[in-house]
């Protein structure tokens, strides 16, 4: 449905996109994940015909963004990062305007606007100016604008940036339930959790290049084994614990300890088996643990591993604030 081939874009000497290749199948929700300045917005702007690429090609629903931008515009719905709704118009008027500009008749536009206002739960404020909406309502209105024409392809540029956690959950809900069956969605995000939650497939981009692509599971698997997280009952048992872990898992896999000195993370090369070995050894050693968990790497870990830097400073809301130190 979306096919991107060797797409490049420079701004002066800055290489925003460097020969990007991507394929998005019909009905797929595709997440483009990367930090600020990675090239996400540039990709969105090229796909929505706002910016022309320097070289390469992007085809949406069979139409080239460079050769036939008008046809592309008729098959996409765009919801931008800055929630471009008209603040002076009411929610209803905003949607009617967009419908009319898609070429729908006045009646059709009104009917569709009413429908969307209901679906997006903004019907109570439909006659209030969008300028008075909360951040979450504005985002819903913006999202609704993208769906007015029931386009086969919907492009969402950082749909939850700047929203509070509640607004973010709301928006996720809307994206997964309201973007209809069969609609192809390309969404960009800097939140790993968001890509994990919403996207069928994810491409990680950094400095204008795709550095990894796959399902969220595939990306996590590519990072390797599961890990064990332990919380010790007593701080002074840390050294003994580290010795035990080293014996079981080996010296090459160092444990990470957080600042309290009571929480450790270690790789579990054999998964469940390693966990049992560790617990058994700790038990024999008389070390008490209050918590032991086996988990797969998070996308945060994937991201860190791929780019060599943590996800953006303002990263996923669920990420723990613990400063991890190497022991």
């Amino acid at each position, binding site marked *: 449905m979306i096919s991107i081939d060797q797409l490049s874009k420079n*701004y002066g000497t800055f290489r925003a996109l460097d020969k990007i290749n991507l394929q998005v199948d019909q009905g797929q929700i595709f997440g483009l994940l990367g930090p600020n300045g990675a090239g996400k917005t540039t990709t969105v702007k090229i796909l*929505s*015909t*706002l*910016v*022309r690429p320097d070289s390469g090609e992007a085809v949406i629903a069979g139409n080239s963004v460079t050769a036939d931008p*008008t*046809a592309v*515009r*008729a098959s*996409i719905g*765009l919801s*931008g990062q*800055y*929630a*471009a709704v*008209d*603040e*002076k*118009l009411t929610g209803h*008027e905003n949607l009617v*305007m*967009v419908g*009319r*500009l*898609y*070429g729908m008749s006045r009646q059709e536009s009104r009917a569709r606007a009413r429908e969307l206002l209901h679906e997006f739960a903004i019907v109570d404020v439909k006659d209030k*100016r969008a300028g008075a909406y909360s951040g979450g309502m504005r985002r819903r209105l913006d999202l609704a*604008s993208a769906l007015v024409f029931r386009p086969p392809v919907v492009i969402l540029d950082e749909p939850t940036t700047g929203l509070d956690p509640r607004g973010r959950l709301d928006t996720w809900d809307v994206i997964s339930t309201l973007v209809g069956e069969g609609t192809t969605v390309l969404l960009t995000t800097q939140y790993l959790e968001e890509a994990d939650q919403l996207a069928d497939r994810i491409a990680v981009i950094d400095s204008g290049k795709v550095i990894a692509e796959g399902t969220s599971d595939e990306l996590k698997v590519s990072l390797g084994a599961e890990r064990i997280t332990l919380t010790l009952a007593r701080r002074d048992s840390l050294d003994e614990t580290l010795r035990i872990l080293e014996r079981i898992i080996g010296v090459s896999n160092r444990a990470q300890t957080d600042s309290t000195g009571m929480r450790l993370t270690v790789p579990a090369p054999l998964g469940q088996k390693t966990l049992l070995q560790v617990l058994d050894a700790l038990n024999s050693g008389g070390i008490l643990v209050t918590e032991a968990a086996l988990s797969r790497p998070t996308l945060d870990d994937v991201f860190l591993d791929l780019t060599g830097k943590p996800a953006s400073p303002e990263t996923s809301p669920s990420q723990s604030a613990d400063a991890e130190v190497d022991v």
Partner: protein
Amino acid sequence: MSTLTSAARDSSVIAWRNLLTVRRTPGALVTGIVQPVIFVFLLAFVFGGSLGGAPYREFLIGGILAQTLTFNSSFTAVYLAKDLQLGLIDRFRSLPMSRVAVILGRTTSDLATGSISIVVTMVCGLIIGWRITEGFGSALLAILLLLLFGFAMSWIGAFIALTARSVEVAQSLGLIWLFPVTFLSGAFVSVDSLPGPLQAIASWNPVTAVATSVRELFGNVSPAGYTSGTGWAADNPILYAVISCVAVIALFSTVAVSQYRRISRR
């Protein structure tokens, strides 16, 4: 749908949206209303006395009407720059709509602001003793000419907004050129009273032609000794005014639309 009908349709949608916006931010209209009031009373009673009293006041209104309509360009510049800044233009540009419509809708709806300014100026004129002495048809032509002129000025404002791309720059660029253009003309003074080279400029300044045409059509007599310059433009003010409006529209609609397209190569 042909390009023309879709352009007209989309422009009317944009104009509808603009008018709603204007109605909901009446503060923006203050400039359009207060400014002609200030100019009429300031020029009529501060300068008017030394410039000829009652006959000057009769002469003045045509000039202020021409001047007021040039300010249409600054309204267009500011409103369009605002839409650009807020990202609304990006939404419009991602829609399968006519490329001209965003600007044409703007310049059309700004005629509403222009019309209000015309009414305010005429009412102020009536208060200070200005009258329409030609017939209704002729007065109507004067108003149509003013609207055409305001429309032309709007296209200059659109070009400024699309070039400046920030509200602040559009605001100052949109205003600054208006002062020399409106004052280097026969809008407020006799062109004969200007020094040589400025006389030539004022004679061919479309603002002079519009002011002179409007006076003619309203049947206003200039004070004794006042001229609107020399040359073909001064002899055929109405024709010249129409020609220059059409030329400005043709030129600035071309550059504004190409500027609108160029934004996509950012």
